């Protein structure tokens, strides 16, 4: 299963990856159903991409989009801030 590498410096906080991920898991659109959180600090113009991989948190863990042709978050990111790396 691929893991997702993140590049915070590129991320534009658009949350398109979050929507793609919630679609992958639920065929619906929301934030809590996704395995990604985009945490933006608007005061400093900084952002952190958090990939959730621990099922213990009560949130869905990233499964690397195993059943999809490609990792949806990577396909949807408009700036190339996400990369899928095969383990």
């Amino acid at each position: 299963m691929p893991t997702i590498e993140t590049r915070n410096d590129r991320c534009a906080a658009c949350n398109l990856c979050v929507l793609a991920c919630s679609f992958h898991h639920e065929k619906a659109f929301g934030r809590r159903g996704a395995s990604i959180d985009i945490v933006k600090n608007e005061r400093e113009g900084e952002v952190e991409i958090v990939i959730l991989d621990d099922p213990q948190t009560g949130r869905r863990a990233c499964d690397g989009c195993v059943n999809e042709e490609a990792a949806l978050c990577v396909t949807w990111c408009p700036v190339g801030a996400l990369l899928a790396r095969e383990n």
Partner: protein
Amino acid sequence: MTKPFAIGGSILRVDLTQSTVTIEPTAPLNERFPAGMGVNNWLLLDGTPVGKEPLDPENPLIFTTGTLVGTPTPTACRMTISCKNVMTGGFGSASAGGNFGPELKYAGFDHIVVTGRAQRPVFIDIVDGDVSIVDAADLWGETTWEAEKRLRAKIDRPTLELLSIGPAGENVAASACIMVNRTRAAARCGVGAVMGSKNLKAIAVSGSGALEVADPQGFMDACLDVQRHLMGNETRKNLRKFGTPSSFGGWNDKGSIPVRNFQETQIDAEAANAITTAVKEKRYIEKAFGCFSCPVLCSQFQRVKEGPYAGTRGEKIESQNYWDFGGKLGISDPAAVLALSELCARLGLDNTNATNPIAWAFECFQRGLLSADDADGLNLEWGDVDVVLELLRKIAYREGIGDLLADGSFAAAKKLGRGSERFAIHMKGQDLAEEMRVFKGWALAIAVAERGGTHTQGGPLTERMDLEPELSMERFGIPTAFDSTNYEHKADLVVYYQRFHNLLEITGICFYATYWSGLHTIGPEDVARLYGLATGDKKTAAELMMEGEKVLYLQKAFNMRHTTFDRASDYPPERMMSEPATGPHAGERLDRADWDRLLDQYYDLRGWDRASGKPTAENFRAVGLPELA
């Protein structure tokens, strides 16, 4: 009953006088009116009592998300906030992007209707269906940024979005806006003042739900398709690099920005160069950000690192900011424009409605109608940044001359008299944002806008595009869409864009991703495709455009009920008709006889009464709104 596709599902009503919260389903109203903006406008029409002042507690303040908001529809993030317009007494609305709208839908709501007035300052806290009215006395008096910071520190939830007012809203300045996510302003019409009049400091929302759509895979594919198409487009690339200020130079080159309170229409080459060079060099830009679900990313984070404004930082500077400060007030230092914009964001001031009365005061000073004694000892000289910083603060706190300026130039001039009324540049009582003399369709849309002077209700940008008449025929069925100073067929063009803009407000798609700002973007057909796949409602593009038409009738009905607006209210400010433009279109102005004809054509297209400029009962029935006839 299962929840219909794509929508949040419910309307939240909060009565702050009674401290009560009620929740009802959205679906019944969606059957009667266009969803989103249409239902919003109906709730406003239905809920606003006749004969009350705009700041009367009984009046509603309504927050609405678009029907496609919260889905991956590119740029569908927008919310509309409506109220009785503080400056015109008629229809009022403001729009903002950011993340609040999507989060509100994930919490299950399409609209929030706030009425009444809390006894003490409060904020509304929404956690899915669990809604509380919480004491906010400790936040009152704080800037929007400080309020947001404190709320974030206090509320610990996995996702949280906020909107708030600053001191300007608390002190019911007509130029008060509502700040969404601290970087997006819902500006114009005094929405922030209405919120302040309700003693409502902020709204917090966390939503754990998800939105289903009618055809999930088909919808995903279509969204990705539109996203890729959008991003291949040159203008969109410029928006991502420079933001909307990338167009400032073009507007000035065409001699079509407001300069020194609209006395001129072009700033000089040196001042223009100072601004456009900073924009082109990306001097202060650190990074491009996007609102929720937006691949365009026009929102640059900027930081000033040195000089007198070092430390200034923030996001989402528009071309309009340069019109407001660079043009109207004669400030050509781009770092100063950023600093002034930051102050407006913190104080919760809408820069357009705050700068117009300042420009009016400067012109009065220039002409000897106002003295430094009248202005708390300030010399109101064009381009003086420190004076403008001080006046913005005075407006927000209604201190000294700020109290006069806080109600807008129209009200200020009425109070001052001395012939100053001529220099209050407004439409229907609301301060004017845009220059009108050169582009005729643009001018018409602004003049007839139900909201009072705005290009966002039908103002065509095509007149700025250098494209061939054949393309104009092909796209709009008229030869003149790209012909700036020609009056012919401009009424048709405005009707087209009025419908289209309203359709975008129905869906929540951002104007910058659409046919409005470039023809290789999202057009009515794309909207229809995405709308159908998401909602299951397979209306054609033409049918959806007529939903946009209904929205306009709802706004018209509001103005017919609450104002005396008539044909005379649809004429531009006298200055636009009698004082010619400067720059490349020197001599250009709006001619009264031409305007008479243009208005006739505009009313005729809809079959409205030429003398009054109003629809007939039959018009309301024909458009599908018999209850308003």
